[in-house]
């Protein structure tokens, strides 16, 4: 049973349809991430759910109640903004208690709830400070605290980590995941960072041009992308895409049944390098990225295809070296000329004992 139900939601700005009819069911307690390139409408969709933008057509139900035309203040949702949007003239305590104060909650209850939230977020000693006197990470935590104090029906996060530096971003990401595990609150999280999407989400919604491309668990999207866009959007480095014309006419390749103008997609871990003159394809190393735990090797094949190979071992290869490239055809995805999936590659799942 859907907790938050979006039906044929549309948004038009001037002449442009930015959200082109979105249907989505979100279950209670679920962590859903909206992800997509900039301009895909993910933030707009979140703002429509929040009530900060007017829904032009379609309906929105929360917990059985139609909230399509309710103002934000009556929807019982909490939002964490990218800029944190703390009230600069209020102390941390006042910021966190503002919603409860508006709801005319008992002062004793308010101070109890704020104290508990502050403890969870390590903000207890900062309660009397103003936002100006806090670091970026602390402000971020106040913004989250402001949301959890209210115990809203749904948490909305709008790219909450993009103003933090890389180290803090990773740390806060883990804290948000923990927080969700502890509170079990329904959460919608918008990000352009697919690593955040993969690590936080129960389900990921991939958006492009105001439409949903695919909805699924992180690994479903990784293993069984619905199309070339999702396949390339999820996973770093990107999935390799090779045109049929750039592949040798071998039986193994022919068995894939690539249509005219079609492509195959291969994850970097499925591109295996051999000494020169072995493997399906011949190639030259363009660049080697040694990351320590893994090594990325960028290759151009004799047919002109650009490939990335990922391996866990380190490599003596250098730019300019000739290599042989073995393709794991079992794992190859096949797309038609329009990028739709025709054949889903096999994944080598860890055998269960």
């Amino acid at each position, binding site marked *: 049973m859907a907790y938050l139900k979006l039906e044929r939601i549309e948004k038009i700005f001037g002449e442009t349809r930015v959200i082109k009819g979105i249907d989505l069911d979100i279950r209670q307690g679920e962590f859903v991430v909206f992800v997509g390139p900039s301009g895909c409408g993910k933030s707009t969709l979140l703002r429509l759910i929040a009530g900060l933008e007017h829904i032009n057509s379609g309906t929105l139900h929360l917990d059985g109640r139609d909230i399509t035309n309710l103002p934000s*203040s009556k929807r019982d949702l909490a*939002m964490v*903004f990218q800029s944190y*949007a*703390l*009230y600069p003239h209020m102390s941390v305590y006042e910021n966190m208690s503002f919603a409860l104060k508006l709801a005319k909650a008992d002062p004793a209850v308010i101070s109890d709830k704020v104290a508990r939230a502050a403890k969870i977020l390590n903000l207890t000693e900062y309660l009397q400070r103003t936002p100006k006197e806090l670091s970026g990470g602390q402000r971020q935590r106040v913004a989250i605290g402001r949301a959890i104090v209210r115990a809203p029906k749904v948490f909305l996060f709008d790219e909450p980590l993009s103003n933090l530096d890389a180290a803090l971003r990773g740390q806060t990401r883990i804290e948000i995941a923990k927080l969700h595990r502890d509170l079990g609150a329904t959460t919608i999280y918008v990000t352009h960072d697919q690593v955040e999407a993969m690590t936080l989400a129960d389900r990921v919604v991939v958006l492009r041009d105001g439409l949903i491309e695919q909805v699924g668990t992180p690994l479903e999207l990784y293993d069984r992308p619905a199309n070339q866009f999702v396949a390339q959007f999820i996973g770093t480095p990107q999935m390799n895409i090779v045109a049929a014309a750039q592949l040798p006419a071998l039986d193994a390749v022919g068995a894939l049944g690539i249509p005219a103008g079609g492509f195959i997609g291969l994850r970097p871990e499925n591109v295996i390098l051999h000494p020169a003159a072995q493997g399906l394809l011949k190639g030259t190393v363009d660049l080697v990225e040694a990351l320590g735990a893994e090594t990325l090797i960028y290759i151009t094949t004799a047919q002109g295809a650009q490939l990335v190979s990922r391996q866990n071992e380190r490599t003596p290869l250098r730019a300019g070296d000739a290599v042989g490239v073995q393709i794991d055809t079992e794992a190859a995805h096949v797309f038609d000329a329009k990028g739709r999936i025709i054949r889903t590659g096999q994944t080598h799942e860890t055998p269960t004992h």
Partner: protein
Amino acid sequence: MKVLRTILSWGVALLLFFPLGWLVLTAFKTELQAISVPPLLFFPPTLENFTIVQERSDYLLYAKNSLITSVASTILGLALAFPAAYSMAFFKGKYTKDILMWMLSTKMMPAVGALVPIYVLAQGSGLLDTRTGLVIIFTLSNLPIMVWMLYSQFKEIPGEILEAARMDGASLWQEFRMVLLPLTLGGLASTGLLCLVLSWNEAFWSLNLSAAKAGTLATLIASYSSPEGLFWAKLSAASFMAIAPIVVFGWFSQKQLVQGLTFGAVK
């Protein structure tokens, strides 16, 4: 270089202050001393001009009219400009910029251009020589500036803060009172102060639309440059009494005023 600059700035300051200083001096002279050649710098001061001005034309009535019209037009102006600036700053539409420009453009037309229609309107609606009439016209003539000042102050506030308040359950009124107002109090004060000063000093409309009943201090001053000839000492005394309150007021609020006028310009 530094000395030169000091001298120059003192020179400019004195030059600007001179007419005002001379006015104050003249207010305490007799009519004879006032027109003596060469002008007197030192003389036994007298208060007789002030007594005469009060006797002849009830200073307090004019002062009351000035106070009421400027305070009322300021409050009314803020009440209208605040929501106008709010919607333009936070709900920008296709024509927001044009409306702002249009509002400002009304200040580019000479006021006298609108005198006849406004006079006829005031006459027709029985607002001639009433404080209500003056309040309306002061409010209208200050409104463009007030909207612009508040607009530029609101522009400094990230819209997400107001959205956060809405998400927190604030009604529009609570959003105004608990978030926007505290954040713009300084700007609001300076806008109000400026409007107060402008209304107090306003002469064109009060001269043309008011007389004995609703006349402001500006009309009081003007009444001393009458056909019976110029009485410099009394004119100065009347002027002195007219401007003294606003000068004192301006002195105490100058920090606010300057801050309001440069808000957003330097950051």
